[in-house]
């Protein structure tokens, strides 16, 4: 029953759900099929809760939260993008509410949203490029470490998209090889512990 909405999402063409917690389904996407999935989830009448980013060793993890007005359940899209080329397509053509969220991510992390109508600073001073939420190398943690249920897989190197991949990647992080192709895939399906403490 819980599964039904996840199945529905899958059936609509959102790539396979990778992780289900109580009422939450995470979909780890690659940045090029993000727009496709977002279009599908909009067709399923999900609303946008927020867009946020976080800084990991492997790259910036973009998290999109969607929920539905009538049905329970939260859909989470995760997109991992590289530090060197923090680019991701903007979903603001589908969800106009994302305009501000994406501007905020640009403020905090310097991520570039391609196709965004106006990427000017939203919350921070426009004169400086501060990116205050970027973490320094020491305090960065590994994405895998925190989300052990996910595992990064070497994406089959798409032949043309790799202008960013091979060349300049520095060996400093083990992550770079995954993010080299700009994406992580997460495989394992696992029920994390039921976390809703409110569940009576």
């Amino acid at each position, binding site marked *: 029953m819980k599964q039904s909405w996840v199945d529905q999402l899958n059936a609509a063409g959102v790539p396979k759900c990778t992780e289900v917690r109580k009422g939450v389904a995470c979909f780890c996407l690659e940045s090029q099929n993000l727009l496709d999935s977002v279009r599908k989830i909009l067709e399923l009448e999900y609303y946008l809760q927020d867009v946020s980013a976080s800084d990991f060793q492997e790259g910036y993890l973009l998290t999109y939260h969607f929920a539905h007005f009538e049905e329970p359940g939260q859909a989470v899209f995760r997109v991992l993008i590289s530090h060197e080329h923090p680019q991701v397509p903007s979903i603001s053509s589908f969800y106009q509410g994302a305009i*501000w969220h994406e501007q905020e991510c640009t403020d905090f992390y310097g991520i570039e949203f391609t196709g965004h109508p106006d990427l000017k600073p939203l919350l921070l001073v426009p004169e400086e490029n501060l990116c205050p939420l970027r973490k320094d190398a020491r305090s960065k943690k590994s994405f895998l470490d925190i989300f052990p249920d996910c595992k990064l897989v070497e994406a089959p190197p798409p032949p043309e998209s790799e202008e960013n991949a091979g060349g300049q990647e520095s060996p400093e992080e083990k992550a770079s090889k995954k993010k080299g192709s700009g994406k992580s895939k997460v495989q394992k399906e696992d029920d994390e512990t039921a976390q809703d403490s409110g569940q009576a």
Partner: protein
Amino acid sequence: MLHYAHEQLQGDYYTRAFQAGAQEDTLIINMGPQHPSTHGVLRIILELHGEYILRAEPVLGYVHRMQEKMGEVKTYPQYLANMGRVDYLHALAWNWAYVRAVEQLLELEVPERAEYVRVITCELNRITSHLLWWGAYLLDLGAFTPIMYGFADRERAMDLLQIITGSRLTYCYYTFGGVTADLTPQFIDGTKDFCKYMRTRLPMYKDLVTDNMILRHRVDDIGIISVDMARRYGVTGPNLRGSGVEHDLRRNTPYSIYDRFDFEIPAYEECDALARYLVRMDEMEQSISIIEQAIQSLPEGPVMPPKMPKVIKPPKGEAYGEVEGARGVIGIHVISDGTATPYRIKLRAPSFSNLSLFAEVSKGILLADAVSILGSLDLVIPEIDR
């Protein structure tokens, strides 16, 4: 002497950027950051043709405090105090959302009495928030007296909350696993009286304001937010319910013990400011009913779990604490790396999403309606800027 849009105008970054898209012979005007009707330091740049708004652009960030960064440098309990400061009008809902997120991470079981206490106080806080909104909205519309009545009643609720929380506005009352202080008999009696009292006040509000012809004409049919628009912008809370969607986390994904109470989710289908107004007025009534039911069935017991970890160190993972606040869905996304400090905290502020549609909804309306729409969205600026 006067600067019109087509002239070269000195201005800050946002004014210049806005001006670049201006048409000929229009008036560019800054509403805010110091403006009586933006309730705080919200700034909206407007392009006016006569009194009609051609274009509007909110400029944020005047009270930006980088709350999310603060979350990354403080320990879990230390960050609690920040939550009351995000949305100072419904501080307990933010408390709750954060506490819920951390409790999910810690897999803490909240004692039953604590849940009841949380429901009672949170609903009481919701009433105070709506009362303040009511007064301030009417102030926007030019009526001075309602805010005084609203404040007088709000004082009573805040006095009650002070009895147990010790503070009046920026509460820091919930804590991981429960609440910091138990209810006192004084509070319980006072709350019962307050509920009775509010039931006599709400009809008075209706007579004075809700039924008033002038108000009706001011709020009827303006600021139409369709369901589709609400979805695209992520509008939640009373604003969404004013668009005819019965979405309320207290009912849709009943957290805590909300499924034990019998209450309605008021929703109106007109999508305009009047619908949003009526939703909030009805919600106060429902909150009173929830409080009465909760007090009636308040169980005995502790308000903190028997054994609490000495140091809050949630395991690795993430959690999303969601709570229905007075303004909409409050979501706190916590990523834990297993240390005593959160790795990343993202605050989803409902006002942020609610305001983001203003540019679209304010096209072609009158300046006076813009004020009315802004008021009907019930914005709290510190929550938007975080």
